[in-house]
């Protein structure tokens, strides 16, 4: 079942097409990877989907309903949550406060229900002991998980993960990969940007490759690793 679809999405910054006529679709229950060199337009595509910016042309559909032009908070409430490339937790609030906020505003829960759900989610992402810690005092690895928990608190059906693994050491990366599959097992569809190829290849069902704002390839990890255009771009031939 198709859950998220983009048709000919285009966004110009000045005269430059950051994203140019990109078509993509994501099926329910998939983990889809989004890769490409720096400046390929991956994060811009995430910003378009999540309502941070509005496409110049093209359309977005979520469960068959129009998502294009909705503001960020409405996209979130509709069921598409995101994390950020550079971690953006609320540093002076507690970890629990960060996550509760997602439940209260993203899902419309009462404060008490959201706090209880937040406890459970902190446990789920492996931060059970950190509930009352100030978010800014957590390590980078833990802040990334906290961001994931905050996104989960909005009870999304689709999650956009922007480089959640990059910058982590091997053990931490392995734990986060495990976390991503556990999120998928909760019935949440995942679209993720990642530079760590090993991670992408091992957990994604499908991979989309962007280059200079255009989609240049799409397929299973095996197809992508043997795709000549992709190899050319990544190896710089």
């Amino acid at each position, binding site marked *: 079942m198709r859950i998220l679809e983009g048709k000919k999405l285009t966004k110009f910054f000045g005269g430059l097409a950051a994203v140019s006529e990109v078509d993509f679709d994501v099926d329910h229950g998939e983990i889809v990877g989004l890769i490409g060199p720096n400046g390929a337009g991956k994060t811009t595509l995430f910003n378009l989907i999540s309502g941070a910016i509005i496409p110049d042309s093209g359309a977005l559909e979520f469960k068959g309903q129009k998502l294009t032009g909705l*503001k960020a908070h409405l996209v*979130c409430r509709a069921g598409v949550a995101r994390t950020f490339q550079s971690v953006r937790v609320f540093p002076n*609030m507690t970890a629990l406060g960060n996550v509760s*906020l*997602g439940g209260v*505003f993203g899902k419309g829960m009462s404060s008490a229900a959201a706090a209880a759900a937040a406890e459970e989610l902190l446990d789920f992402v492996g931060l059970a002991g950190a509930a009352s810690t100030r978010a800014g005092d957590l390590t980078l690895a833990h802040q990334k998980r906290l961001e994931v928990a905050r996104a989960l608190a909005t009870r999304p059906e689709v999650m956009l993960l922007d480089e959640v693994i990059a910058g982590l050491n091997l053990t931490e990366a392995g734990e986060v990969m495990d976390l991503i599959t556990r999120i998928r097992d909760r019935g949440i569809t995942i679209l993720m940007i990642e530079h760590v190829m090993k991670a992408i290849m091992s957990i994604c069902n499908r991979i989309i490759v962007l280059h200079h704002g255009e989609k240049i390839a799409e397929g299973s990890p095996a197809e992508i690793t043997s795709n000549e255009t992709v190899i050319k771009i990544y190896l710089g031939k």
Partner: protein
Amino acid sequence: MNRFSPYSFGLAVLVVILLALLPLYGSPYTVILVTSIIMYAALTVSWVMFSGPTGNVSLAPAAFMGMGIYTAASLGKFLPLPLVIVVGAAASLLLALLVGALTLRLKGLYFSIFTFGLVLLLRQLVLWYEVTFTHTRGRFVVVIDNTTIFYVMLAIFVVLLVTAYLLRRSKYGAALEAIGEDEEAAAHAGVNVTAIKTIIFGVSALFMGATGAIMATKWTYIDPYIAFDPFFSFMPVLMAVFGGMATFVGPIIGAAVFGLLEELLLTQFPFYYMLMFGIILVVAITYLPNGLTGLVMKWKKGGRTANHANP
């Protein structure tokens, strides 16, 4: 976001009762002085309600207060006092919602400059209106006795405190705090950033308008320069910084100390008043980055660690 302990709640009630009985034991001079301190405290608490959590320094208090002042001056003859205050508050609220919806997207310095511009714009607008249409400048305000002014000001302040406290503890308070820390992240967590900022900006303006409406009756004569005096935009900022914004009582203490200090310097050293005021301010900001309450908290903490060090 700390809850008030029963102890602090009791203390707050006691202070309010003592204040309420002030006209019975205090001199008329004391009543007037305390009224003006409560006015400062009300402006400061209203200001902190929005600008504290968001970090967006609004310089609009004088505009909102001026709306209240002019409402009182224009309608004081026709309407009973409570209604004048309600209309003054509502006028401020409307202005804030209108301005807020248009400008709360502005960040940092741009927001501050715009809000300050609003004060000057309104002042010129009212002046132009008076000169062009009524061919007067300024007007007299229906005079009310000082005790009534005191009680009304105190009542507005108590309602404001309860509102500010409940807001701070509510989900909207949490959302405003999140907006202050990272606006975009808050939006992506489902917070309707524009709506929450606009509404809380409006509520804070409402109390500034009410304050202006009652205080106008104390000044007998007002004109646009008195009503829209930028002084009332800067005072709340200074008092909040002076008192410290980390705690709920910080801004109130800041306003009280500042108000007393102003009166003391003004009466004792009328010629050096501004100079001394300035020096105290510079020293306070340099050495007390977290304000008076920050200093108290540091002492408390220091005391505790010292206890640990001596088993």
